């Protein structure tokens, strides 16, 4: 095998310019794909991370029918205490669950005593919310990031609202809300923090303590609008959320109808479509890479066979077995693939390192100055490398086969 590789290398070096051009194509293709995977992947991870770790959680549990009406935040579809207990019991027994946070969600009016505007409010238990959506606190652009997110009598408001209503930390404001029976109630709060807005559902919500929410809404029993769940391993989202769905959606009321519904973040956020588009684009880029390698290597190998017909005739005449002639040409494709892959991976990793040193920033919806920090998994690098090498060998197969089946007499006569 080493003999074959050594001769293949010599043959590739015979046409240096052509070999270099082919390698260049492979390298450019590899760099493009790996950089795209790294940049798009990190953007997707950042985006999904922001959505799941600062707003939605990985999975949410609602009373059946709540998500269909989620835009109106229907208080009449809150989970009753018995339901909440059952859900919490199931979550406590599930080893895949890291934490969960019950929320009361409602729409209300926010007033600074001079102006009034609408607001969507989450009533949360600050400790449980912080455990379930750990990046939420990090979105505070004003306020103490190390203190509890909210305390009784305090409110955290989104930046857009703070700007529009000229609210500052320490200001006293009023939140007025209508409960499910239609009665209106108001409660004063002190502005405790201002949150950076984030694109997507819940990205411009305010936060108060869950007990304040119950008081404001005059709840007679501790109802909950949703339970956000954080899983221990996000990579196992499909499996673990599926298990939760099976466990919770199986619970039925007296009429035998399901009372709960379980959704993962991708079913709740329109950005899941964007994430899927990124995956789709990655696939197309991979297909383009395969095409580039296939055409480039096949072209160079077809030329190699055509230009060396007499040589093939000679080696066949002196007794080189057809299989060895085949392997000689396959080895050339393999060498092109391997050298192109190694160079492409080295250049890509250098470029990724360079971007991480450079730290370019970009905007995502409301968020500005997000730092691009591309990373690539070893598995992705190996997959692309193996793909390129395999495609390079496959591209050489037809020319190599042709060479191995060549009639020595015709080949020796070739001018």
């Amino acid at each position, binding site marked *: 095998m080493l003999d074959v590789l050594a001769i293949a290398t010599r043959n590739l070096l015979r046409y240096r310019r052509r070999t270099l051009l082919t390698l260049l194509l492979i390298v450019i293709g590899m760099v493009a794909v790996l950089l795209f995977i790294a940049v798009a992947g990190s953007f997707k991870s950042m985006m999904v991370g922001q959505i799941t770790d600062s707003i939605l959680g990985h999975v949410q549990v609602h009373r059946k029918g709540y998500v269909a009406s989620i835009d109106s935040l229907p208080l009449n579809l809150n989970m009753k205490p018995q339901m909440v207990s059952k859900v919490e019991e199931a979550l406590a027994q599930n080893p895949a669950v890291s934490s969960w946070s019950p929320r009361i969600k409602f729409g209300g009016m926010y007033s600074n005593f001079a102006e009034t505007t609408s607001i969507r409010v989450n009533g949360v238990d600050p400790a449980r919310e912080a455990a379930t959506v750990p990046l939420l606190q990090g979105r505070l652009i004003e306020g103490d990031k190390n203190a509890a997110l909210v305390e009784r009598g305090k409110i955290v408001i989104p930046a857009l609202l703070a700007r529009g209503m000229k609210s500052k930390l320490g200001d006293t404001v009023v939140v007025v809300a209508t409960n499910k029976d239609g009665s209106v109630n108001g409660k004063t709060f002190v502005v405790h923090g201002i949150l950076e807005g984030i694109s997507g559902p819940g990205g411009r919500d305010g936060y108060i303590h869950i007990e304040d929410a119950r008081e404001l809404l005059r709840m007679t029993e501790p109802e909950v609008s949703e339970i956000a769940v954080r899983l221990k391993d996000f990579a196992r989202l499909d499996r673990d959320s599926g298990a939760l769905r099976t466990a919770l959606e199986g619970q039925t009321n007296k009429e035998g109808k399901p009372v709960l519904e379980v959704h993962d973040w991708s079913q709740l956020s329109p950005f899941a479509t964007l994430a899927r588009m990124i995956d789709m684009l990655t696939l197309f880029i991979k297909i383009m890479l395969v095409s580039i390698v296939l055409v480039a290597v096949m072209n160079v190998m077809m030329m190699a066979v055509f230009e060396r017909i007499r040589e093939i005739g000679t080696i066949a005449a002196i*007794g080189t077995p057809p299989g060895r002639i085949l392997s000689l040409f396959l080895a050339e494709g393999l060498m092109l693939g391997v050298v192109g892959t190694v160079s492409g991976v080295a250049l890509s990793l250098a470029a990724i390192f360079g971007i991480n040193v450079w730290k370019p920033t970009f905007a995502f919806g409301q968020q500005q100055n997000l730092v691009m920090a591309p990373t690539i998994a070893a598995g992705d690098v190996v997959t692309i490398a193996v793909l390129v090498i395999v495609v390079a060998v496959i591209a050489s197969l037809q020319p190599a086969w042709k060479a191995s089946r060549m009639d020595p007499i015709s080949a020796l006569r070739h001018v």
Partner: protein
Amino acid sequence: MSLVQATQLAKTYRAGDIDVPAIKGVDFAIEPSSFVAFVGPSGSGKSTLLNLIGCLDHPTSGTLKVLDTDIATLDRKAAAKFRGEHIGFVFQDFNLIPVLTVFENVEYPLRMVQKWPAEKRREQVMQMLEAVGMTDQAAKRPDQISGGQKQRVAVARALVSNPKLVLADEPTANLDHDTAYRILELMKKMRDEFKTTFVFSTHDPKIMNEAEVTFTLEDGILRNGGHHA
């Protein structure tokens, strides 16, 4: 026992709808360690006959036994194996591999066809290069040596695996007269040294006189049964 034995050997090519007979039922025998020439004008069937003896082609009819093997029974793979083990080739255009050095060209059959161990290979190649007087050119590439030197290397490559038979199709056609004679002398010397049978084709009357046995071909028919010089 003859090294090569042909009985009513015929080869017909098909060109479109027309059958073109190249060899028309010839009988001949070639003895071991002989120095044989097939002579005749272009198109007389010399190359076809050499291709048949070299197991590069199959006869249309008749039998051709090389080293007691009926070559008609050999498939593509078996024929390649047979050639690699028993037959050496010298070509009119030398046909050295341009990316390999002189040493590597001679080494090629041992490395890529017979897979000799490296040390034994090196010893054998150096012995052959010494025999053809090319030791000092071992590191050069084919484009760095003359036509005569290239043919010497080709002779060394043909002999390196100790074949019983070396076939040379017009080996001197691309060489000047003096060089051609020197190559024939070298081939004779190799025959004497290694007891290898040399069969070559030529249409040059001066060269054909160097052969010890001459078969004259005309239009695919042997005009003599092997003229001994």
